[in-house]
């Protein structure tokens, strides 16, 4: 029998760990949307003194990669401090799973984003957020580095697909070097919006596909 994933991914897919919700969660996040295909919910319980993740649960509306990454991420994050957990990357999660098909990278990124957002949510609730600085073009670029081109599994900035970023009075204009009818134009658009629109001082994001 030949399956599209390795044994470890299949194992986590069949028996995902830490599934569900936490009653009185300290931090929670829901990433993705049914429109972009996958959704992940991550909830955490944090030890107030040590700032360690005592408990973590996830839920997934997604494909096998998404479910397996959600599962592994909960295992990786449990017991870690918030600072440590924040730094868990999709690469780490994917390595821990023994590798994922390149085309599925974006599905696994979502689970990692879910964890980070749950931590952010905790920090915001507990007045720990420090980032109230004004958004700059550099900061937007940094955000775009997290948006993957699903075809290659590489990010938009690294693969030089961002032609131009303009920022004026809270309105961001991003010029992407891909044709409007590119097979991934829509999923890329949604991911870009997710990353940039959420910045506190951004009013509107315009994405132009001019390739």
């Amino acid at each position, binding site marked *: *029998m030949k*399956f*599209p*994933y390795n044994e470890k991914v*299949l194992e986590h*897919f*069949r028996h*995902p760990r830490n*599934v569900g919700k936490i009653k009185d969660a300290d931090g929670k996040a*829901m990433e993705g949307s*049914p*429109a*972009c*295909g*996958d*959704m*992940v*919910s991550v909830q955490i319980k944090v030890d107030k003194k040590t700032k360690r993740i005592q408990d973590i649960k996830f*839920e*997934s*509306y*997604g*494909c*096998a990669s*998404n*479910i397996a990454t959600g599962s592994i991420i909960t295992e990786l994050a449990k017991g870690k401090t918030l600072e440590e957990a924040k730094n868990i990357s999709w690469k780490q999660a994917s390595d821990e799973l023994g590798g994922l098909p390149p*085309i*599925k990278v974006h*599905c696994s990124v979502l689970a990692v984003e879910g964890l980070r957002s749950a931590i952010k949510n905790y920090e915001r609730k507990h007045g720990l957020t420090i980032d109230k600085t004004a958004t700059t073009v550099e900061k937007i670029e940094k955000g775009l580095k997290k948006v993957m081109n*699903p075809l290659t599994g590489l990010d938009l900035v690294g693969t030089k697909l961002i032609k131009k970023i303009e920022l004026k009075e809270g309105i961001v204009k991003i010029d992407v070097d891909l044709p409007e009818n590119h*097979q*991934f134009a829509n*999923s890329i658009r949604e991911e870009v919006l997710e990353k940039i629109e959420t910045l506190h001082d951004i009013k509107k994001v315009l994405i132009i596909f001019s390739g």
Partner: protein
Amino acid sequence: MFDEKMIYLDNASATRLDERVLEAMQPYFFKTYAVATSEFGYSQGIEAKEALQEARESIASKLNAESKEFIFTSGSTESSNMAIKGIMMALQKKNKNHLIISKIEDFPILYSTKYLEKQGIKVTYLDVDNYGFIDLVQLKDSISKNTAMVSIQHANQEIGTIQNIEKISQICKERKVIFHTDATHTFTRLAIDVKKIPVDLISVSAHTIHGPKGVGGLYVREGTPLTKWMDGGFQEFNKRAGLENIPGAVGFAQAVKLVTGEENEQLIALRDYLISHVLAEIPQTTLNGHSKRRTPQNANITFHFIEGESITLHLDMNGFSVSTGSACFSRSLEASHVILGIGGNHERAHGSIRFTLGRYNNLKEINKLIKTLKEIISELRKISPLGKD
């Protein structure tokens, strides 16, 4: 964890070859392998030519067509490319630069028209209703004096919806427009009589009816203007060049002969059993397509709040082969244009599973499927953040 026997339910994609088809083909690999020569050639070539002719007559008769109206191709993808591009090339000279298709056609049609659009051809994409039917009034209104052809599938590849090609072909005939239909998923399962229905071109294929892969055909009504686009020799009445695939043609003819009315009735019964039991026993499910006007082999159901690739993988691990309209399953990561076309949202497409039946499926397998599905769907819903309130 794994069953020894796989239960194959993706017969719209490809089918298991029937042994009787292989048996019919075998002599044309090892004994009569010559090229089909002219009647003045050598004896093995004449035998090959006769076998080809016999296969052609046999398949054409299934459509009640003349044998010279049936051209062998490498499959329905080629047939549809040939029909769409060949007709548009032939009629463009006469200022006929408009083509009408439905928005839920299969990829050979959709991408042939996208290619033609780049060459300056105008294309109208007809909407479909919630079942996938085109609107005959919209079709009539879309035909203009520049319209060269209409191409509407006989039945849909994903949801099995059968179009009213009797009426569509009549409309086209009245308006003097050429009508092509893609019958990949209906040929031999539903009857088409070209003496009764004024259809001009029909794409068919062997791979959906337990015949060999890589062989199909195009019915071309006599007198239909069709530009040849595969150049080379003068095979197939000078309409399609290339060495004839004689074992393929013989196998195709045999596959056509083996489909019986009784088998089609059995498929309908099995399909209806599958659909009614899944809808009744698993909550939050939607049938995609029409309950009656669908191909005998097709059942397409959305399982809400969960994603199709997860379902197919679980089914695979339990020994079932099916396909899904989910973006995650496709090479392009795009959701099914058919489910979106019938007004479904992405969520409906992502959770849609296509079960397509064939000669080798039986009731025992379907019962096992329903039992397995219940477990899988319930497990995946436990993981999902959607649908819980």
